[in-house]
Every structure is written in structure tokens, then in C-alpha cells.
């Protein structure tokens, strides 16, 4: 057990590419935690996807020693989709290092996390990174940080995580400025789980911070929110190698293994106490993560449906925050409706399914959860996340959709184009504030459904990559929403049904019908492709019938050739879906669903 006044618990808050992982690597080297011969880049990012994308998804924590002090570095997920997990990680700390790229300045998401740290009364140790770069402007950005956050510019450290310059001074500042944890060893145990992941050999491995009391190996534990009891099979610290120890005292950070098979039973925010003489009140701040973005996932090859189910089950063990349930689509066959914390989360889950489980998937357009108030239904709404479940228009009193409060920090020269973008996405401006003469922050209230489709890509391309985005949920509001159906030969194609704002239905309908006209091969008869809203056709295209499909010559040897072609086409037709008597190749659906790319 470590003496409590010798402990410093901290996270590093930084924007993607501002050098958090590199700084972590330098700290591991400087504190001799990792043998230089075993050092590899981004040591703490263990998933392939994390290293490739340069982001942290699952937080890692590590214990290092510095001049007689024990530092617990608590890594935080680097993306807004995982905001809740960030808040749990911060709850395990007394301070943070705010790391800002000295050539770029502070970004929207970093700022949001800083406010979060301030709300939690954490000490902020600010540092400008990459001062070795020729384009670094540390003075300018130090002043900006002072303007925005009130941190005195002369207290801001200057480091280069890449070369190691100033990292020792930064660690000294951590020890000096960040307070040590408080907590009595004699109190009943309360430990906060701030991250869990599933290991196929050990079961769930949780990162914990002991707030009060102490936890011992072998102890019988009660998980207060999950209302479950497990034995502490092993506790330990990561240095960064897992090292079992007998006991963790107040203020200490370590890991817990308790023969748990499902991360859903050891979620971030869970309070762990002793089964005997335990605490009576759980720690504040726990909540169930709620999926915000939904889509259907279907195997390209219908035979892989069971494989997809297995893969989802396995992935769910490791990621309690996504949801799935079976659904059937006339166009795409059997699949699952899945819910995600956000768009990146959706992309990551999909990519992991394809990569780690070797599946080939079709994803329907992302949608959100709508709240439907029926005529005469009073105040009890129905929730739907699949457009095809929307009841007929005449039975609906109103539809509410989720909104976000988004914050965009952009160089001022792009203000016009960013405002255009937000307005075109039905955004309502709340605030515009200059952070410095060159940069400003814009706050909008925007429907989530307008963000889920390529908003981030648009923002990046309109601002040459300079703008940054942060968002938080901002309740539900009623909107003028309609269900748009796409019909082939008069029959709706469920995979293309969407809920959309009335003002945008016409454009979307035109785009979709013309795309399908191109993608669906001509048939023996004319096929109307229509978009309809509430039974009214708003766009129509026609796939003209074939006029000629016959081989001109069919003598001796041609007969074999022609028959073989027919046999092949006959096999090919088995892979087509029949909708409204129209034969549609699977590829047409896949391409049409890529419409918004």
C-alpha cells in the first residue's frame, strides 16, 4: 500500500494528434517503467484500430514512480462518442495534464474535457507540446489558453514529447501542483470502476480507483449498481505489466479480476464495496450509457447470419455500450438493428466485426431514436429507431427527435462556410465567441439526425481540416418530420425508408430514385421507381424495359455457349432479391446505401 500523500492520480487531456500517446511513451521511458528495448510507439494503445487511427478507445492506466512519488496515469478515450467514459476516468483523478499542440492551439473537444475537469475541481497542469516544430507558436497559444480557461500563461509548461524536452519538468509540476488523494483507510471500501474490458482467458478486467477504505485479494465484493457479488480473484497494478498485489489502499489505482464473464456487469461508474461491513451509499455519477445512433447490419452473404450473431455476442462481452436485436428486411434479409454511442463507435464496431470476425457486412443509413406521440395517445410516447416502424402519418400527433448542442472551434476565415453548414443542417445558433482574433467558437443546437450523416466530414473538408467539433445531448424537440418510402414497381423497399425533415424530403427522394434507376438492371417491363411521403409521390423515375436481349446467331457450337451462359445467369439470379416482381442484385442495394458517402 502506498502512503496517500505520495500518490498523484492524473489524466492527460489532449486533442487527437496533439501528442498524448507520445507523451505517455516518454513518461514510461523517463520513469524507467518500460525497458527501452521493449518500447514501441503508442505503448498504451493496444488495439490495432487504436494504433491505426491514432485514437484511444479503451482506456489504459499505468503506475510509474517519480522522485519518490507514485503517479497513476489514467488514459482517457480520445473521442466525443466516449464522453461518459471520459467523465468516469476524470472521476478517478485529482488533476489533469492539458496537452495542447503549440502549432495549433486548443480544440473544441479538449476544451469540453477541460470544462469537465474544472467542474470536477481537478487541478489543471497545462503544457504546450511540439515546441520543437518550426511552426510552433507557444507564446500565442499560451495567451489563448489564458484567455479561454484563465490559466496564467506563465504557468504553462513547454515540452516536446517527441524529443523529451521539458517532460521531467512537467512531471515535477504534476507532483507539486496536483493534490494528493484524500480518503481514510478505515472507512468501508468504495472503489470506482472507470473502465472494463474482456479478456478471453481471465474474463472481465476492470480498472479501479479506491476512493475510501482498502481492497484485498480474495475478498468477497459487492457491485452496488449491478447488485452482484463476486470474489476478488486478483488485484494488482499495471507498471505497465500487470503485477498482482495483496492490497490497494485509499487513493490507489489498479486492476480487479473477479471471474466476471460480461463487461455489462462491471460497467464504468460502478461502485465496488465489501460484502461484509460494506458501504451503504454508492459513488455519484453512475449512469447507463444510452445508444444514440442506430443502423441495421446485415451479412452480405445470407449464410453468415449465425456467424454475425456469434460475433455480436462476443463483442458485446467487451463493449457494454452497444446494443443489438434481430430484424428482418425484405431487401436485405436477416440482420440486426444495432445501437451505438455515436458515429465513430458505430464505425469501430462495424470494423471490428469485419476485421476480427472476418465478416462482410452491409450497413443501412444511420438513424436516431424518435419519440412518437400518437393522436389521442396522451403523453405516453412510442420510441422507434427504425424508420420502417413509423406508424402511418394520420395516426401521429407529433414526432420529437434528439438534439445536440454542438461546439465548433474554427479559424475565423471559415466562419461563413461553417455557419452555412450548420444552417443547412437545421442548426440554431446559440453563441459565437472569439477565442483570439484568429479563432472562434460557435455553439449551435442541431438535430442529431443531421449530424449522423457526414456532418463531420463536411466540416473537415470545408475548413481544410482546421475546425474541431464537440457535442453533447441536448434533449428532444418536435420537428416537422415525415417518413419517406422508396418504392420499386409500387412496393416499398424497407432498406431505403427514412425519416426526414419535410423540407428535405424532395431532394432526398430525387437523389435516391435517380440512383436506383442507374443501379437496377433493366427488366422485361418498365419499372417505376418512386419516392413517396404519406402516400403522395414526390419523385419518380422509370427504369425502361429491355428492348432486345437475344443472341443473333445460334448454330452448331453457339448452342453450347448459349446454354452455358443461361446456366450461369440462372445461378446468378438466385442471388437476386425480388421486390415488387423486380429482380434486384444485392450489389445495387449496397451501392445505393453508399449514397451519402
Amino acid at each position, binding site marked *: 500500500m502506498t502512503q496517500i500523500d505520495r500518490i498523484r492520480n492524473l489524466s492527460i487531456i489532449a486533442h487527437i494528434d496533439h501528442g498524448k500517446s507520445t507523451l505517455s511513451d516518454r513518461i514510461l521511458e523517463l520513469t524507467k517503467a518500460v525497458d527501452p528495448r521493449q518500447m514501441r510507439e503508442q505503448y498504451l494503445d493496444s488495439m490495432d484500430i487504436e494504433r491505426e487511427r491514432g485514437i484511444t478507445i479503451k482506456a489504459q492506466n499505468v503506475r510509474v514512480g517519480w522522485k519518490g512519488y507514485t503517479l497513476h496515469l489514467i488514459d482517457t478515450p480520445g473521442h466525443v462518442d466516449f464522453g461518459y467514459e471520459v467523465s468516469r476516468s476524470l472521476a478517478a483523478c485529482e488533476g489533469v495534464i492539458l496537452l495542447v499542440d503549440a502549432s495549433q492551439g486548443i480544440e473544441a473537444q479538449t476544451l469540453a474535457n477541460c470544462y469537465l475537469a474544472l467542474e470536477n475541481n481537478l487541478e489543471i497542469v497545462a503544457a504546450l507540446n511540439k515546441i520543437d516544430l518550426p511552426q510552433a507558436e507557444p507564446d500565442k497559444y499560451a495567451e489563448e489558453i489564458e484567455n479561454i480557461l484563465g490559466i496564467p500563461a506563465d504557468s504553462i509548461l513547454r515540452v516536446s514529447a517527441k524529443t523529451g524536452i521539458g517532460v521531467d519538468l512537467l512531471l515535477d509540476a504534476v507532483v507539486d501542483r496536483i493534490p494528493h488523494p484524500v480518503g481514510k483507510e478505515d472507512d468501508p471500501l468504495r472503489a470506482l470502476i472507470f473502465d472494463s474490458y474482456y479478456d478471453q482467458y481471465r474474463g472481465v478486467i476492470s480498472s479501479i480507483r479506491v476512493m475510501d477504505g482498502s481492497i484485498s485479494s480474495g475478498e468477497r465484493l459487492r457491485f452496488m449498481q449491478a447488485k452482484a457479488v463476486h470474489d476478488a480473484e486478483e488485484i494488482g497494478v499495471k507498471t505497465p505489466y500487470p503485477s498482482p498485489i495483496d492490497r490497494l489502499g485509499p487513493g490507489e489505482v489498479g486492476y480487479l479480476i473477479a471471474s466476471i464473464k460480461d463487461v455489462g456487469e462491471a460497467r464504468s461508474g460502478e461502485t465496488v464495496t465489501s460484502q461484509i461491513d460494506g458501504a451503504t451509499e454508492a459513488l455519484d455519477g453512475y449512469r447507463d450509457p444510452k445508444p444514440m445512433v442506430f443502423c441495421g447490419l446485415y451479412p452480405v452473404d445470407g449464410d453468415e447470419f449465425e456467424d454475425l450473431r456469434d460475433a455480436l455476442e462476443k463483442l458485446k462481452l467487451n463493449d457494454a455500450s452497444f446494443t443489438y436485436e434481430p430484424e428482418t428486411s425484405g431487401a436485405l434479409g436477416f440482420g440486426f438493428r444495432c445501437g451505438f454511442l455515436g458515429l465513430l463507435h458505430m464505425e469501430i464496431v462495424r470494423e471490428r466485426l469485419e476485421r476480427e470476425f472476418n465478416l462482410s457486412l452491409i450497413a443501412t443509413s444511420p438513424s436516431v431514436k424518435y419519440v412518437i406521440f400518437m393522436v389521442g395517445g396522451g403523453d405516453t410516447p412510442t420510441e422507434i429507431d427504425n424508420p420502417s416502424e413509423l406508424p402511418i402519418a394520420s395516426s401521429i400527433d407529433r414526432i420529437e427527435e434528439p438534439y445536440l448542442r454542438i461546439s465548433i472551434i474554427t479559424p475565423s476565415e471559415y466562419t461563413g462556410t461553417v455557419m452555412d453548414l450548420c444552417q443547412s443542417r437545421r442548426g440554431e445558433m446559440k453563441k459565437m465567441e472569439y477565442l483570439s482574433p484568429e479563432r472562434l467558437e460557435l455553439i449551435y443546437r442541431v438535430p442529431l439526425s443531421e449530424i449522423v450523416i457526414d456532418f463531420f466530414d463536411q466540416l473537415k473538408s470545408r475548413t481544410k481540416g482546421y475546425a474541431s467539433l464537440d457535442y453533447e445531448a441536448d434533449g428532444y424537440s418536435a420537428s416537422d418530420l415525415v417518413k419517406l418510402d422508396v418504392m420499386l414497381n409500387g412496393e416499398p423497399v424497407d432498406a431505403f425508408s427514412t425519416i426526414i425533415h419535410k423540407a428535405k424530403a424532395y431532394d432526398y427522394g430525387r437523389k435516391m430514385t435517380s440512383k436506383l434507376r442507374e443501379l437496377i438492371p433493366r427488366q422485361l417491363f418498365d419499372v417505376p421507381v418512386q419516392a413517396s411521403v404519406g402516400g403522395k409521390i414526390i419523385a419518380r423515375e422509370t427504369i425502361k424495359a429491355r*428492348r432486345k436481349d437475344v443472341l443473333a*446467331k445460334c448454330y452448331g457450337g453457339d448452342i453450347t455457349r448459349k446454354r452455358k451462359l443461361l446456366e450461369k445467369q440462372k445461378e446468378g439470379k438466385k442471388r437476386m432479391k425480388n421486390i415488387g416482381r423486380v429482380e434486384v442484385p444485392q450489389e445495387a442495394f449496397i451501392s445505393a446505401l453508399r449514397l451519402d458517402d
Partner: protein
Amino acid sequence: MEKLSGLYVHIPYCTSRCSYCAFAVVHNGYAGRHRYFDALKRELEGYLELQGGEFVGFETVSFGGGTPSLVEPELIAGLIDAAPLIDEAEISIEVNPESCDPQRLAELVAAGVTRASVGVQSFDDRVLKYFGRSHDAHGAKVAIEAVASSGFDSVSIDLVYGAPVESERSWDYTVDELIDLSDLLEHLSAYALQIEPRTKLHWMADPPTEEADLAGRYLRLDERLAEVGLKNYEISNWSRPGAESRHNSTYWNGGGYLGIGMSSHSFDGQTRWWNVANLAGYLACVEGSGRAVAGSERLTDSQIAIERIMLGLRTSRGLDTATVAVPGRFLDRELEDWFEISGDSARLTARGRLLADAIALRILQSVEEGRDKDETD
């Protein structure tokens, strides 16, 4: 086993290759034609021996190519003599306009050839040039007149429509010219241009003619031909009553035929086999072993059924009505418009013929679904 009622003889020589042609032809090596004809005879004799004494004779012989009219008529005559024939056998030959001098034609008639098919392709010089033909429209007309006055029982010509350089007017002009000459003709073949791999046209990659335009040209031709008494009896073939090509009908009715010469195909009702497709290889094989078979396939019953449907749709024979309809109702309602039904036979209309391949596919599917259903019942 079907008896081999037809004999196809492949003559691979051409003076030059046309831009659309992917056939097995050679434009040098003509000097070796005597050796080639010796090989043809040897191959034929080998098959005749296998047939034993029961073989009564071929009902039809067809010389195709290449340009069969390029070789001396005596070579053709020699081969006809070597083939046992029934009385009233149909003996046809493909001729090109540039090799239609009256002397040569008379010799072919004397040798027993009953039917000549002239490779005209078009009456528009621009199209002929595009195809790389070595004759012009005037030469074609002269040739048709020469063939018609040579004493063949039946005269046919070949046309090709849909060249990228062919306009609607150009095609209508060709049809006008054809109608003017139609008194001289018993038969006509007209093919939509098909761009085959390994042809000059494929390499040129001109934008192809629209489906709808091709369909329009076909339908106009069909109408005009009907007015002068030439009736369609296969997708690309029209004739006066009784003047249908008996040889080609054997292909379409599933009959047996023997093909000799390089690249030719044979069929005995169950097995199809084909010869080596290059001249040197063909000669070496036949001279060594008497045969030059490069491959064969034995058709399963379901493959025979597929071919029967596919070929039936192409011809005026049509399908058994029961294949597509039960009394009062079509099995696949979408197909109803493309058929005309008379008694036991369901035939494609002119518009339906243009879609024969797509329709064949649908019928095969519905036949298969019906079978699957029977199995589960």
C-alpha cells in the same frame, strides 16, 4: 442416339478478315487446300465406318466458313461425292459476292449444290467499308443476280444490321434494296451486329447502337419481309414457305449432325464434340489418327431440356403450350404479352423474339421453381 442427319463442312479460307469476324478462318495457307480437303475426306470416312452399314445417308450438307466459294468447285464436288446422301438432300454453300462468277456457280450446281447463301451484309457502301468487306453494294447486287440465274433451288442472302456507322436511313435503304430484289430470294438471314472479343470492331470499341434502335430495325425488317412473303421461322431467319434451311433446322430441333473440318461441332442428340480450332493442329491430328476431336460434353437430361426450351423459343416451332401456361392462365403473367398461342404451340411474337434470351431465363426459373415445389409437395 439421334442419327446424324446433317453434315457440316468447315472451309476456313478467306482473302481477308472482316472487322466483325471471330470465326476460325485463315487468310494464308490457301495453297494447302488440297491437303485440307484430303483431311476432310479422311475424317468423314472414319465416321462413316463407325456408323456401319445402317447409315442411309445425310439429309443435308452445309459448306460454311470462311469462304467456301473461294476454293475450286471440283474440291466441293469431290467432298459431295464422298458423302452418302439421301434423295432430295439439301446441299448448301456460303458464297461471297467477289467469288460469284457464272462459270464457278454453274460448276457448283453441276456438283449437286442446291442452295446458295450470298454474304451481302448491307447495301450501304459505308457500312460495307466499316465491316472491311471486299465488295460494294453494286457488286453484291450483280452477285445475287448471277446466283439467282445459275439454277440453284434456293437462294438466300445474309445481312447484318446495327453497325455504329449505320443510321436509320441507311438501314431502311438496305431494306428497300432487299425488297426490290426479293423476287430472286427464297430465304434471308439478318443478324444484329455482335461485337466479339478478338475482332477488329472489339478493338475499335465504337459506341454500340442502342437496344431500342436495334429493336426498331428488326421490327421494320420483319414487317417488310412479311409483305413480300418471307416469313420469320427463327430469330434471324426468314423464308418462303417450304424454303426454310433444313440443315440449320436440324440444329434448332435438337437433331444430330456431324461437323468436319477445323473447329466444327458435332452432336448426336446426347453428346456434343468439337474439333481442334487451328489449321496446323487439325491437319496433324487427322493425318495421324483420322480424327481431330478437341473436347466433348455429354448433356444431362436437364441440359437437354434447357436447350430444348432455349431453341424452341428461337423458332416458329415454339414451346409446348403447357410449358408456359395452364388452360386460361399464364404461369408467369409478365410473359403473356410476348407469346402467341395456337393450340399446343406457344410462339414468341416479333417483339418477344427480341427478348428471347431473357424470356428463356425466366421460363427456366419458373420450370425449376415448379420442380422444387413438386418435390416439397
